[in-house]
């Protein structure tokens, strides 16, 4: 928290919101692409749960994509912080 006060980055809830919102958009696009190419009914033979309906498969697929894109976003945000709390970001201009 001290770090935040020093560096003027967005507060945690807002960074969380930004990651979740943008990863939601990306997950929507990814779900669209994935399921236009693959029919969940054809995947039935490859997964251990054969009783899943198409709508359920779309939903599970969407949430998995969201998890993936959100994870990427969280790491990206985390990696924009200096690993050493004493370091402040370099000033530009």
């Amino acid at each position, binding site marked *: *928290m001290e770090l*935040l*006060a020093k560096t*003027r980055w*967005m*507060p*945690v*809830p*807002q960074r969380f*919101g930004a990651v979740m*919102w*943008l990863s939601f*958009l990306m997950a929507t696009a990814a779900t*669209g*692409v994935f*399921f*236009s*190419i693959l*029919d969940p009914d*054809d995947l039935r*033979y490859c997964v251990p749960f054969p009783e899943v*309906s*198409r*709508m359920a498969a*779309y*939903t599970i697929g969407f949430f998995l994509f969201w998890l993936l894109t959100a994870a990427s976003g969280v790491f990206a945000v985390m990696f924009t912080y200096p690993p050493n709390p004493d370091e402040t970001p370099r000033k530009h201009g």
Partner: protein
Amino acid sequence: MDDTSTAPKATTTAKTTAAPTVEQSLYEKRQKIYPREVHGTFAALRVTAVSVLLGLFYGVCWLRWDGHQAVLFDLPARKFYVFGLTFWPQDFLLLTLLMLLAALSLFFFTALAGRLWCGYACPQTVWTEVFLWMERKIEGNRQQQMKLDKAPWSARKLRIKATKQFAWIAFSLWTGFTFVAYFTPATDLLAKTAALSLGPWETFWMLFYGFATYGNAGFMREQVCKYMCPYARFQSAMFDKDTLIVSYDEARGEPRGSRRQGVDPREAGLGDCINCTMCVQVCPTGIDIRDGLQYECIGCSACIDACDDVMERMNYPKGLIRYTTEHALEGKPTRIVRARTIIYSVLLLGVASLFFYLLGSRAPLGLDIMRDRNQLYRERGGLIENVYMLKVLNLRDAERAFEITAAGIEGMLIDGPGEPVRVAGGDVAEVPVVLRASEAELPERSTPVTFTLRAADDPTVSVTEGAKFLGPGR
């Protein structure tokens, strides 16, 4: 958390509006913006755009076409109906091109005319406009709204606020219903809703979309544009000095100041701006356009209407705030044809041509080939046998018969349905087919073969797909 450090500079301009209510919102301590109602040319244009777009959204789901809903995205059946056209998953490229076309149009119009999309067509603008209209009908005009919010809670305030919430929530639920009606046929959905027997998906999406409408148009409003919209962040990349923007003519307006009607501003040492702050009061994002081009400006041109109205009453020429370009403000000519617009329009034309070409040349049939999963091949009567499952897609609306042939190996025998396969309109038939070939003709473990599907009534309508014929190899 240090809130003041993150507050953008827009709040400094909001001081002129002096709205007293500070509410804690998602992004910052935000002063509620009470945009004043505005009348004029551009307001009329926006009301027209809002009516047409919302009319389409709420109306189109009730249209019928050839016995089915005119526009229906049937996800469980993997078929999209758009009036006379039926789209299948294999038309995915068309959808991609359509998205590309939409993005390029946005870039093109942004380069040419700035944030037209934001001001007139964005769902955020459109629904906010409706919510503002309801708020105005129920709570009264800007002053009455501000007074009501400042007043202590009373029976009257409770009644007014409850009425507004009721109207907002009812409208949001109807919006959620309409959204779902593009995925579940609207008439079925209405019957299910009336019988309170909606499925879990329908219920979830109806409430989700309804809640999003209520939250975004009722409360978030300009914050969506300022903080959440990706387009708002990158639209400046499409701008140049020839892009149409809403701008205040500083040279003509300054020095601003109040004066009595009939006083010649030049004699009083004043510009044309009477500093009435009407442009600030009508702004839905709470900025002062006189501070110059700001990223919060969604180009709604409410300030143009407001200022023109004042100029008319003052007997000054209109257009102190107007649609113009940076070049025009500097007294230079504005070029519409320039590298940026040429590149965007060439790309736009290219993608549009490709889209319509592909749309026009879609084959009205499709063939998917799957190999039998249980065995690679089997030997019977001295011949090698491969079993396939063929999915025959009739992409037309009417029933059609198809013939299946195979080629690729000398002397190959095909054991299929024997007669043409009849497939109902927009349906898929699964047809098992066995191919037999002599081992002498199979030099490799895997030999390519092709299946051809041909309409029985029109031999020119055909599609050929490849598959593999597996054998023991030598």
